[in-house]
């Protein structure tokens, strides 16, 4: 009888995507999800949403099959997509987010440059107001187990006069309100990250500074990139899970540092392979 090893994604050594130890911890942690053009991390974000809400991970880890009711409260803050996008994409994971009471979508997309930010060249007060309203919305809930996912904050850096330091400070404040903050950001080189960029007027200068500072504060880094050998039909890209600059304060939390190759099919089926 032959048996093949099950190749599943686990970010922590306790074979989880979102660890119980993080949810019960009194501390706040930061995970950075960076991606390069051609490797959108939508499927991982969907799995994070699923795992945060009910502990399962249907598409990427078959061992995580025990459903837990109200595992944590999840706040999705997006500068790039509306709620429909997540509701539609999470259907594959067996989730109907429009009915999940613990899923809260904070829309920073629909009216961002029409109502929320009235003058992009002088937007600091507006962005302060936006983040204040986000803090308020998150603080009203008394749940201890909060997870926040923040998508594409770099759009603010590229289009307004906010500095990377200011945005970082706001993000740190946001991080303190939850157990784990996931930041999804593009990591294209040299468009977004270019360490040799000396031009302070180039938005890439600010985005590079922003990402480097985040890397200094993160506990887990998850990076997506295409195959270095070129495009393949059966492999989409490489996923690398690594430790961030800051360690976890609890010894029980340990990261499963690993690199995977993965394949996403047209029907959103995910296959994970160990490297």
């Amino acid at each position: 009888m032959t048996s093949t090893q099950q190749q599943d994604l686990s970010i922590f050594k306790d074979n989880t995507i979102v660890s119980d130890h993080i949810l019960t911890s009194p501390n706040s942690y930061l995970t950075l999800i960076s991606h390069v053009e051609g490797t959108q991390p939508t499927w991982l974000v969907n799995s994070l949403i699923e795992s945060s809400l009910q502990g399962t991970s249907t598409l990427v880890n078959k061992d995580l099959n025990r459903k837990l009711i109200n595992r944590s409260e999840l706040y999705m803050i997006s500068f790039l997509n509306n709620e429909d996008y997540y509701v539609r994409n999470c259907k594959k994971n067996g989730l109907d987010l429009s009915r999940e009471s613990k899923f809260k979508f904070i829309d920073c997309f629909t009216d961002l440059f029409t109502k929320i930010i009235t003058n992009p060249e002088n937007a600091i007060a507006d962005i302060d107001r936006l983040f204040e309203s986000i803090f308020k919305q998150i603080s009203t809930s008394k749940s201890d187990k909060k997870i926040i996912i923040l998508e594409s904050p770099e759009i603010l850096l590229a289009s307004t006069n906010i500095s990377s330091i200011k945005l970082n400070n706001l993000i740190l404040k946001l991080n303190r309100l939850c157990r784990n903050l996931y930041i999804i950001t593009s990591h294209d080189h040299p468009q977004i990250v270019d360490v040799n960029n000396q031009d302070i007027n180039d938005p890439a200068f600010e985005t590079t500074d922003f990402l480097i500072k985040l890397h200094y504060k993160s506990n887990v880094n998850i990076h997506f990139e295409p195959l270095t050998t070129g495009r393949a039909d059966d492999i989409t890209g490489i996923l690398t899970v690594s430790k961030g600059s800051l360690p976890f304060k609890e010894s029980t939390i340990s990261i499963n540092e690993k690199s995977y190759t993965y394949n996403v099919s047209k029907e959103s089926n995910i296959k994970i392979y160990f490297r």
Partner: protein
Amino acid sequence: MSFRKRSEVINPGGTIPNRIPSIPGRAPPPGVPNGAMRGIPGRTLNAKPKEEVDLKSNPGIRSSIITSQPTISTGTSDLDKLLGHQGLPLGNSLLLEESGTTDFSSILARVFASQGIMHNRIDKSSNCHVIVIGLNSSWSKDLPGVYKGSSKDKKKAAIKEKESAISVSNLSQSSSTRDQDLRIAWRYGLNKKNEDEDSSEEVNENYTHQFDITERLRPVPDNQEITFVQVSEYKKMLAQINDIVKLHLSKNPSKTIRILVPNLLSPSIYPSTFSKSSIVIPFIHGMRSILKSNSSNISLVYSIPTDLYPKTSNLISIIEQLSDSVLQLHPFHQKLSELIEKSYKNEPSKVQHGFLNIVKLPILSERGMMTIHNNEYAFKNGRKRFEIEPWGIPVEVDDEKPKDDHDHSHQSSKNIEF
């Protein structure tokens, strides 16, 4: 013992959430207020019930072959195939990046607009509206018209039209010759073939048309078919677009709206201040917001010259992030162009004009699929159609004249000696 009326439907196919039994005389279950979720305490439905729009009634819409989402044709059948859905799914945007001094992207943009106008003219229900940003109404006079076939086809069509016209000579002729024709056709099964063709044409008849760039779309589209939005402050433009969209959807909720932004940031259309990232990114972000808020009616196509705004810039990267699909048109380098022309000098119709690179494809890229294809496809623009085909390096043919027999024998002996 209680009886139920036979005609009463208890549960028509599966459970319907949030449905309160409508059995006469029976009150709703205790503790379940109207609109509240069952099984999830304290949760009320916050999702607004979406208005059911009958998109099937719109002849310009077809389901995507991958996701079944409503999809519209770009007017270029090869581009429709390349996008993977047999068109551009509604609620999605397509960014065309073009390098060099050519303007192939504007052909795709014009055909996209013409296709919308053609859909609008299928019947009198006004199915489609086109919004063009940055240009004026003279642009609509140059939209390509429908391809009517070669000169031979045109003559045939004219004869057919003449024959089908009701006249005394036609009627007297029809009874004898047509019966004979039909008998022969039946004998050889030609009628059957025609029937098959007819049925297949019926399915795809109005979805996509073939356009001829030397023909002009007549009559010229009017204000009811196409609206032009002039470049001004980005907020004013967004408000204007939003108003146009609302106005048209209030009249016909199943209408499709094609928004077109040709040559975005081109200095001949846009002022230099518009290229500031604090203006152009909010503008595109706002467009995306309008698109996603009306995802079952709007699609957006915009083109940008990448010689002025290179792909390695932060601005283009953010614009690509805000786009659902991205294609790049790279006209061939002069040397490669010369080589291709030389290789196909006997078949000029095979000469391609550039590479077409895929960066993002609608829906598939957002799902996380790797869709980058560089230098795998080439495009050529002809009078009849814009073709996209897999790229292959052409075989170089020697220019030397074929040698006569004497030379040949001389050469072969030489070869033997060697």
